[in-house]
């Protein structure tokens, strides 16, 4: 029986814990246009309101995968002096659990269920919960999988996206 890193970290009681809800500012035409340029998806529905009106979303909407960014990254907008050396202050998908950043984190995978797009002017709110933690012992050492489910809603309370994120924590090598 190998020692449990999950037990050692004391994280199991945090399964079921909730993330603080967070609401973004209104999404702008500029946000939508620049995001489309960044992902190099040059569909006129992201650049031209008339084309957008005639297009599949019936109005100016962001590329679907913009949903999480429409809220912003809670905790990321901090003075440089308050950021870690790696440029980060916190990770999306990592809950407030003790000594979280004693381990290194990476994104393992995600499931994105779309119900409605994010439109220009929307203020999107995210809520979330830690639904599962498990541990695996592999060739590269111990891995902890932390799965969270987030729900994104617009200002009318309409569900836009149900987002399941699995983050992987592993002892740091540096």
């Amino acid at each position, binding site marked *: 029986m190998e020692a449990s890193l999950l037990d050692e970290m004391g994280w199991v009681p945090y399964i079921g814990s909730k993330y603080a809800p967070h609401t973004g500012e209104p999404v702008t035409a500029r946000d939508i246009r620049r995001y489309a340029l960044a992902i190099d998806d040059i569909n006129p529905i992201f650049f031209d309101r008339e084309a957008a009106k005639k297009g599949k979303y019936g109005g100016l909407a962001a590329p679907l*995968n913009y949903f999480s960014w429409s809220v912003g990254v809670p905790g990321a907008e901090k003075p440089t002096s308050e950021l870690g050396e790696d440029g980060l202050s916190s990770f999306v998908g990592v809950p407030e659990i003790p000594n979280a950043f004693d381990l290194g984190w990476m994104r393992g995978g995600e499931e994105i269920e779309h119900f409605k797009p994010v439109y220009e002017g929307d203020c999107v709110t995210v809520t979330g919960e830690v639904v599962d933690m498990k541990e695996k012992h592999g060739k590269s050492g111990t891995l902890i999988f932390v799965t969270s489910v987030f729900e994104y809603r617009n200002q009318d309370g309409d569900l836009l996206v149900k987002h399941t994120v699995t983050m992987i924590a592993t002892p740091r090598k540096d």
Partner: protein
Amino acid sequence: MSDQVFFEDVAVGQEIPLLTKSVNTVNINMYCAVVWLMDRIHFDYPFSVERRGLPNIVAPGNMACDYYTQLLNDWIGDQGVLKKLTVQYRNFMLPGNTLSCGGRITAVEANGVTGTVDLELWIKNEDGVTCVPGTARIELPARANQ
């Protein structure tokens, strides 16, 4: 609407048209700037290579979801709906990579006015390495209901 794909047009085993994406530092920088992503591994070469042991700076993994969204939306047209996308991050997408994004239909189910279609998805680099495998569920209109 002339190039709308309908449920009756698809079958299990069929591959959808490939989408090619070039990963470069300019697009990575645009992405990080527009979403305020300040993780140094996306823009700081010495940090990424010397401190994190990565081969280069790396594209944000999330961009794979954007590539798949474009791949699917380009194919399903105005009347198709992307319902669900699932991805697993396996290998980094690096500047200089030319990525082939593709999909193959694994299941179809008629649903009255629409049909549900499941796909397996892949993003492969020029060496044939799968970076971010995935699956998707989409809805296509039925020609019978047009």
